[in-house]
């Protein structure tokens, strides 16, 4: 593959869609709100549920409980054990997945029109009549431990953990791994898991996106049947995290031929008036396509890496501009220097008019391409609501990109690219770096 797809990219980067797409807000008889796009050409429905507050809701000393809880949801419900539940799901050819991130928990579902009622009822038992059998919890704990063990010797995971800890400290959930530690997982009880379930999957922080073969009249009662019995409210959301990243280079020694680096510093909030300007600027500097400044300087001109990119991470409790790169141990020092030079140049000079115009053309032209299948769109409908965007956001988003001026770029460049604050966490054995 010519280009490495960076795993980063978040929030706004995954917002939607298509100006002609008809999004309607549906309110169920029971008062649940959802955004719906009807698409009757294929006989199935995709539904995305988002719950604000993910692993940040892990209680003190219970790190990893949210992840363990979400991973155990499909391991038994109602009168079915894990294997019975899986068999029932297979028989309906429905697919459900349960995931959790720092700021949110997600439930994704796809089910056929021909057995929609049964599939929805099966998902209801998973969410509402979850069993959390001790045996299932123990089995999933074993899987989580296995992941923790693998991460402990994986350079990519080591650098992530190191960067997060240095950025947010040990006391905010952002500073530690969502999986928890061997000790924290070992100590978790069934009661802890049930408490997390009642804390995370709650109605007043839930956002719903639906795309597919269903009408508004059918959707309302379906949502009530599926979600009406969830708890109304949940646990307390945490305070803002305290940014504490120190400028400089932190090398974590690890025997492997190629060093991996995460780099960056504090970013910009989603509701900042300059967010769109920052978004455009980041795309031009580190957007991951060949047109980006970093890709050009580090890969195309010098062959120092296979891929480099940066992302804005406007998380709920803190914000970063974060980059990622990997270079052979004897080349990482040069890579770091080139990044520093680009950073300084952007801070001093912003973009040229041509760079700004090209980036805008890319971003506005690429926007409709995100209109990419029912499940993707359902996720975008959910995400827009969670971000607090208006329902006509898809129609105004490109105008906000177009409105970014050279002055905006100059102003935001000074705030967003701060060479003196740049931190590098590097895992490997880079030469010539202290």
């Amino acid at each position, binding site marked *: 593959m010519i280009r490495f797809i960076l795993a980063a990219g978040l929030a706004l980067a995954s917002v939607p869609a298509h100006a002609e797409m008809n999004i309607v807000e549906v309110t169920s008889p029971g008062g649940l709100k959802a955004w719906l796009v009807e698409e009757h050409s*294929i006989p199935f429905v995709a539904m995305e549920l988002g719950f604000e507050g993910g692993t940040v809701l892990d209680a003190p000393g219970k790190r990893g409980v949210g992840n363990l809880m979400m991973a155990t949801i499909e391991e038994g419900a109602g009168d079915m054990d894990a294997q019975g539940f*899986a068999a029932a799901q297979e028989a309906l*050819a429905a697919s459900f997945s349960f995931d959790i991130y720092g700021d949110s928990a997600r439930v994704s579902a796809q089910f*056929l029109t021909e057995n929609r009622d049964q599939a929805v009822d099966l998902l209801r038992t998973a969410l509402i009549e979850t069993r959390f059998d001790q045996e299932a919890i123990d089995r999933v704990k074993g899987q989580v431990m296995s992941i923790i063990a693998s991460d402990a010797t994986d350079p990519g995971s080591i650098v992530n953990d190191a960067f997060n800890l240095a950025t947010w400290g040990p006391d905010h959930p952002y500073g530690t791994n969502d999986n928890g530690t061997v000790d924290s997982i070992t100590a978790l009880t069934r009661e802890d898991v049930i408490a997390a379930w009642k804390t995370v999957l709650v109605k007043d922080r839930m956002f719903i996106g639906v795309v597919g073969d269903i009408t508004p009249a059918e959707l309302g009662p379906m949502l009530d049947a599926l979600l009406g019995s969830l708890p109304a409210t949940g646990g307390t959301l945490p305070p803002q995290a305290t940014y504490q990243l120190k400028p400089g280079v932190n090398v974590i020694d*690890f025997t*492997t*031929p190629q060093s991996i680096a995460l780099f960056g510093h504090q970013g910009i909030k989603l509701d900042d008036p300059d967010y769109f300007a920052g978004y455009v600027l980041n795309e031009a500097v580190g957007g991951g396509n060949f047109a980006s400044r970093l890709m050009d300087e580090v890969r195309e001109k*010098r062959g120092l890496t296979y891929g480099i990119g940066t992302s804005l991470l406007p998380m709920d409790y803190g914000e970063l501009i974060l980059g990622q790169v990997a270079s052979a141990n004897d*080349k990482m020092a040069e890579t770091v220097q080139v990044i520093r030079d680009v950073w300084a140049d952007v801070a001093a000079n912003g973009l040229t008019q041509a760079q700004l115009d090209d980036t805008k053309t890319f971003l506005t032209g690429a926007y409709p391409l995100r209109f990419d299948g029912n499940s993707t769109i359902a996720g975008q409908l959910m995400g827009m609501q969670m971000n607090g965007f208006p329902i006509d956001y898809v129609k105004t988003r490109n105008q906000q990109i177009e409105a970014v001026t050279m002055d905006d770029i100059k102003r935001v460049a000074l705030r967003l690219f701060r060479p003196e604050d740049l931190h590098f966490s590097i895992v490997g054995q880079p030469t010539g770096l202290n």
Partner: protein
Amino acid sequence: MRILLGLLASLFPITVLAAPEPTLFKLDNGMEIVVLEDHRAPVVVQMVWYRAGAADEMPGQSGVAHFLEHLMFKGTDNMAPGELSDTVAKNGGSDNAFTSWDQTVYFQRVAADRLELMMKMEADRMRHLKLTEDDVRTELQVILEERNQRTDNDPGALFQEQMSAAMYLNSPYGRPIIGWRHEMEALDRDKALAWYKTYYAPNNAILIVAGDVDPQNVYELAKTYYGVLEPTPGIESRETRVRPEEPPQLAERRVVMSDPRVSQPQITRSYLAPERDPGDQKMAAALTILAQVLGGNGATSVLGTKLMFPPDAPMVYAGAGYGGTSHDDTTFSIVAVPKPGVTMEAAEAAIDTVLTDFLAQGIDPAKFARIKMQLKAADIYADDDINGAARRYGSALTSGLSYDDIAAWPDILQAVTEDEVMAAAKLVLDRRQSVTGWLMPDGYAEAAQ
């Protein structure tokens, strides 16, 4: 929950389906055209698939197919280096490429009204690539970094590379696509251009256009841009290209590897397995279903229920995988991660016991019926993913299958019987044609005693 191991990326769930209906054309110069319509969004994907991949490389030049793929983004007589990707980006599109054993593929995804520009550029680089020594030298560093990132930094990937090398006694599938490092370091402009001149021609390429397009219009555009390109005489026969084939495999092989970067030991058993053959896909269909029966969903699969679920179960994870779409013989694989304290010997013995019992006892009819239901539903879900459909066509066609084979595949899968799956299992699960691999942390074997 699903535990994600790097090597499982290739062990996918059920992929079947031919839908939607294609419109087919062929240009006078031999280039084939497949158009797949999806008018839900004003978007198009253009893909050009070359019937040339890593398995076609000359011995000693491993990695040249992939290297050329990178160099295809440098200039032509009409475009400056990087101009193609820049132009795609300026038009709001995305582009990329990938190399596999049987094919090399270039694609752009862009607003439907920009298709003509994409064709103009893609056609240009099919015949008019221009490479400077500088471009080649820098890009060689990039692919070495790519090898660092994908392979040398990842013991699981190194292990997989050793497994494949041991699996194939004669087939070029035993060589890594990215290339062995020492051979990559010796690649140069002449080797890359020789590869390009041999294989990059309209009569060795398939154009696939999927999305919000009118087939007749696609054909007219293709005639304008691709139709004028000169074919290379003599490569039409590549539809039936012949490569070194596997001899009878008579002796099982073992790969034992330790690496301090490994935390979780892992056992992989790979068996040589037949692939989908033109006009003869029944065995591959049975093996596709066998992979679901043995692996698939861990909560209901044979390996999962026996090795992951009982209270004293030895494994954290156990699964199976088979990818039948390839030109030559492929593999059927079983992967397991033992629980802490379980020795590699005990874990391997547990796998073999499960397989022996399965061969004696057969398939649970309820599980078999559920798999058939999922295959049927997969046809519906597939309509939501036009890119996936385009990839399935390209992959099948460049693996030597015909349009009829692709169209017949869902029905062939649906028609497979339990007896046919068991017959396939007995044929393939033969240790004489297998490699068993142990990947362990340093010192694991002693520590687990």
